[in-house]
């Protein structure tokens, strides 16, 4: 049995490594993905461009402006003088937000009256918009607290001269500390997820393609008259791509650590082991695809049909918690979801088996089910 599996495995490897196109296909897409997600996809808001419309022009309004520029999160790119200019700045995307200080800002605050500062945010990118709005809001809130304190002090001092009065004003401030990804780099969030992405692509698509290709060129019919058993053919066809998938995991991890400085706080061996668990599912899905496709095009389309929703619903890019409740339940059917949780857990939290066992169990059950269902469909008869 093992001799025949080895014969097929060796043939697959010769074929995969002989064709230059294939060689490229095995290792370049992982690198491209990694670079795209590592460098290009950045959801952090740093140096947001804002327009500053100051209709008050007082030392007070300037001091608020200084707080914005001093925060490091905002760059003031223009100072529109009219509504038309505000409109234009937002239309053209020159500014992501406009801050408008109303006339009488200093006068009202000096009299102890409330006043409003308007923030106009470009909402075309909702994620950036909400971040910009919340940063701006927090700067203004801070300014407001400060102002209050100062006025309180003035009031107290002027009302009862000479007497000892406590200057303290009670305050509750939220002091948040972020664990696991203290600087909230979106890179730390995305790059580990790429591992799941790559294993999925390589194993699902290549397994399906390599089996369907044998059907297309007619070698499958020829293999059927040899003593090869279906299970041997299956293993011989899937093991090479499992190996390639694991090599890609190592490759991606090394680049993630060296180039992107993603922390790997957990065990790399555990990561590899979980990758093997995940591989059972994606190889099984690839086998299944090969049993229902007659041509390589069908197999290719089929793999997109499977992998696109699997990714959308994995929490790789879009947080599962933001999905409608029904869809959230649906994600429990998605093996990629579990693997993404495992990968992030191992990389960022240093989680071990004690924490990750539910996900690992889910992947194991999933893998065995998918693999045996596909194996049952994978017969060695023509009709």
């Amino acid at each position, binding site marked *: 049995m093992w001799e025949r599996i080895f014969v097929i495995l060796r043939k697959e490897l010769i074929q995969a490594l002989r064709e230059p196109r294939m060689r490229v296909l095995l290792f370049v897409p992982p690198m491209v993905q990694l670079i795209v997600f590592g460098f290009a996809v950045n959801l952090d808001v740093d140096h947001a461009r804002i327009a500053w419309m100051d209709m008050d022009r007082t030392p007070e309004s300037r001091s608020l402006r200084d707080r914005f520029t001093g925060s490091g999160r905002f760059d003031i790119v223009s100072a529109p003088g009219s509504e038309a200019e505000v409109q234009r700045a937002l239309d053209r995307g020159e500014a992501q937000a406009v801050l408008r200080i109303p006339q009488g800002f200093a006068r009202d605050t000096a009299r102890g009256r409330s006043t409003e500062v308007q923030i106009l945010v470009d909402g075309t990118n909702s994620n950036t918009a909400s971040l910009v709005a919340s940063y701006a809001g927090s700067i203004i809130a801070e300014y407001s607290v400060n102002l209050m304190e100062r006025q309180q002090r003035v009031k107290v001092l002027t009302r009862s001269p000479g007497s000892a009065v406590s200057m303290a004003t009670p305050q509750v401030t939220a002091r948040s500390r972020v664990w696991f990804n203290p600087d909230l780099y979106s890179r730390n969030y995305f790059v580990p997820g790429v591992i799941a992405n790559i294993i999925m692509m390589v194993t699902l698509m290549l397994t399906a393609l390599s089996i369907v290709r044998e059907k297309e*060129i007619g070698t499958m019919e020829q293999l059927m*008259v040899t003593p090869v058993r279906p299970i041997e053919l299956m293993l011989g066809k899937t093991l090479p791509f499992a190996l390639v998938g694991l090599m890609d995991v190592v490759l991606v991890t090394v680049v993630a650590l060296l180039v992107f400085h993603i922390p790997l706080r957990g065990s790399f061996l555990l990561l590899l082991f979980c990758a093997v668990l995940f591989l059972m599912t994606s190889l099984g899905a690839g086998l299944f695809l090969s049993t229902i496709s007659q041509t390589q095009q069908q197999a290719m389309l089929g793999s997109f049909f499977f992998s696109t929703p699997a990714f959308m619903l994995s929490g790789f890019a879009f947080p599962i918690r933001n999905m409608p409740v029904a869809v959230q339940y649906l994600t429990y059917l998605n093996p990629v979801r579990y693997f993404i949780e495992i990968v992030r857990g191992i990389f960022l939290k240093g989680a071990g088996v004690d924490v990750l066992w539910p996900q690992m169990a889910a992947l194991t059950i999933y893998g065995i089910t998918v693999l045996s269902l596909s194996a049952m469909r994978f017969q060695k008869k023509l009709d």
Partner: protein
Amino acid sequence: METIIEIRSLTKRFGELTAVDHLDLTVAKGEIFGLVGPDGAGKTTTLRMLCGLMDPSEGSARVAGHDVARDSRAVKDQIGYMAQRFGLYQDLTVEENMVFYADLFGITGETRAQLTAQLLRMTRMEPFRTRPAGQLSGGMKQKLALMCTLLHRPRILFLDEPTNGVDPVSRRDFWAILYQLLKDGITIFMTTAYLDEAERCNRVGLMHKGKLIRCATPGAMKAETGSATLEGAFIQTIHAVDGATA
């Protein structure tokens, strides 16, 4: 004479269509038997059932003493099968293709080396052993395919239109190899669209709409219909059957 293929009432249905309809036939050991007939007559389906690639809907067939449906693994050890579009790995060389098939049959080491060399010599393919199969001519591909089916020394060879689309010179070479195999005692069961090839068979079976309508030596067929050529004999026989059922 010893019977090596015994077909009893073999039937294959695909839904409504009956591709092979109660076929009865025996082939003797060492014989070369040709199955002819129009496209869609059911020749390939018959061959696939005999090789254990498809299970019959009805009836049975024994090949080299084993039932093709129940004991297909035993059958596969005894036969070589060359499909109409034989699958060669285009990106593997002549030698790699041969080694791959030999290994799958468990033929390794010294035996494999000897057999490979012997086959390459017989087909005069020695100079091309390191050439990728994709870069061979049509005739050479055919020879390579034949070699791959011969590596495990089968007793029966099933060939499905083996010389389809091959130039006349290569076809002659190919037949020279077949005669050599017959001399070694191998039984050949083939389908063909070329009637000059059918003429070289010991016996021919004419299939039409899933039925075997005539089975005899080429000479007897011509004599019965009074036709000078095998082609004329076939057309007359087919028309006679169609006329009777219409």
